[in-house]
């Protein structure tokens, strides 16, 4: 092994230091925001002159934040389900079938990851104006799906490629019909890929800003859009409180997923 600790000598302290710096770089801004959300300074002064829960109270009393939160959540859930279904279907076709233009089609499905989001957003904006989808829930879903589906195509496609098709043959000869095979063999076997697709799709929608800014109406503002406008209009510490809650929610999600994963694969 190249990285045997005992053989590194004093150099290992250099590595420790480096690792600590990287972690600090990644984590400090988040810690900073969390501290500011409990600070009494209206202008986000650091260190905070006094500690307070005022901004959290203000956040709770403003129904627009709650509205945005629920909108984002509903939207992300809808996008997750649709993205897994559509992306999964596409992944099946792309992995299982051999047809002309397969690679091209695959590249096409993944292209939203490469095209700058702002271009997608502008195109979508002018297109959905014609259809009257701007500022509607359906418009939001359509926009976010463009960003989310590539994740599903890639994640589910990867698990399908690793999946041994002989398992489906074995299930068929055992007497299982197509739907039974899908439900009881294929989907459980590619569940990790489906789970990853769901998580990435959810997150893609949950913190999507660019398309949402174009799609938003005064009545329908997702959480990231609300945060963005709030930052521009009044730089209030409420934004720090929102951010802190979001970070907490993400951490909770990771812990829950980690536990679920450990139950699935003991050891």
């Amino acid at each position, binding site marked *: 092994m190249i990285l045997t600790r005992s053989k590194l000598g004093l150099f290992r302290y250099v590595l420790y230091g480096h690792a600590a710096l990287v972690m600090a770089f990644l984590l400090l801004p988040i810690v900073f925001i969390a501290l500011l959300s409990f600070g009494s300074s209206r202008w986000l002064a650091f260190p905070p002159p006094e500690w307070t829960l005022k901004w959290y109270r203000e956040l709770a009393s403003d129904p627009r934040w709650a509205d945005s939160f629920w909108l984002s959540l509903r939207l992300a859930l809808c996008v997750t389900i649709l993205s897994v279904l559509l992306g999964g279907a596409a992944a099946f076709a792309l992995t299982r079938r051999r047809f002309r233009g397969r690679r091209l089609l695959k590249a096409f499905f993944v292209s939203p990851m490469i095209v700058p989001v702002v271009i997608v957003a502008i195109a979508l904006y002018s297109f959905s104006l014609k259809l009257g989808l701007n500022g509607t829930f359906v418009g939001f879903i359509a926009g976010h799906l463009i960003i989310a589906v590539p994740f599903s195509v890639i994640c589910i496609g990867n698990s399908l490629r690793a999946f041994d098709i002989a398992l489906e*043959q*074995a299930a*068929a*000869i055992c007497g299982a019909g197509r739907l039974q095979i899908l439900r009881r063999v294929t989907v*459980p076997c590619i569940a990790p890929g489906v789970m990853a697709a769901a998580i990435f799709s959810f997150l893609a929608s949950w913190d999507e800003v660019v398309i949402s800014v174009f799609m938003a109406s005064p009545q329908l503002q997702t959480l990231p859009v609300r945060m963005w406008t709030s930052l521009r209009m009044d730089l209030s510490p409420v934004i720090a409180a929102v951010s802190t809650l979001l970070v907490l929610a993400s951490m909770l999600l990771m812990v829950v997923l980690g536990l679920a994963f450990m139950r699935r694969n003991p050891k």
Partner: protein
Amino acid sequence: MSDAIPAVRLTDLHKRYGDFTAVDGVSLDVRTGEFLTFLGSSGSGKTTTLNLIAGFDEPTGGQILLNGAAVTGLPPQRRNIGMVFQRYTLFPHMSVAENVAFPLSVRKLPKAEIGTRVDKALRLVQLERFAARRPSQLSGGQQQRVALARALVYEPQLLLMDEPLGALDKKLREEIQHEIRKLHHRLGVTILYVTHDQEEALRMSDRIAVFEHGRIVQVGTGEDLYHRPATAFVAGFIGNSNFLCGQVAERRGDTAVIALPGGGALSVADASIGGAGTAVRIMIRPEEIELAPDRGDQARAAIPITVRERIFLGDAVTYEVTTADGQNLSIRHGQAQANRFPLEAGASAFARIAPERCVAYTAT
């Protein structure tokens, strides 16, 4: 032959993939309760034929009858066939018991009955203690035994096995061969077994179908194939064999007198080979040739040879010898026989060959 309905009847089965013909006119009857092996090298069409019977692929021509009923167009799940695959195809997210229960639960059997039948099937393969384990916690041999239990638990009319022991080491393979053989006797299920291992085929089968280039070149018992191989290919595939080149000197009715290049002649009873002048190859098994100091009686042909090499094998001795015209032969003597007439490398002797032990083929 009885006129009972065969468990499997293949009639002029074809499977083409574009320009490539994987199965080229296979016809075969498999009797109920029979253990029949498809033997052939890879790409000979044996696995494709099995997949056609299973229903994973549709034939481009011909017909498949299972117990007299055509199954062409019927999906695999409606054929009531059991199958064990070469790769371990246990469902990784289910326990051993759940895997074995799978065919029963898709048939919507009552829970209690599933339980008893799964127990019975696991006892059959001696894995009842492992019911709660995951497939990944089992060895390869154990996994294949679970696969066997899963294939037998719903009592299919026909069991297909596609090189099920290919991934196992020799000792384990022989152990499970024995188990499968015992199960076959006990359950009386018809088994179609695919292998490229001739020893495995001989050890296990009632009959063997030898595949070459998408066709069956011969079907018969192991003894048929060993003693009366239909073609030089079959002779070379089953057991060890020697081929001597010669020429038909004269025909006497059904008997051809074949002149050997080093002098000497063999009379072979075979009506199928051509008249005088035809070049032939004569197949003799290594243990059918006797080395002796003299020509011996007239009933046997005797060819003068020189011993090139003597190999001691414990219970037997193998001599690699060369004839006067430079053809090589392998001769196998039992220990007692070798002791009677010991030969070292460089010694000269006569190879005595009984004509009735020879099979002649027209040289191609």
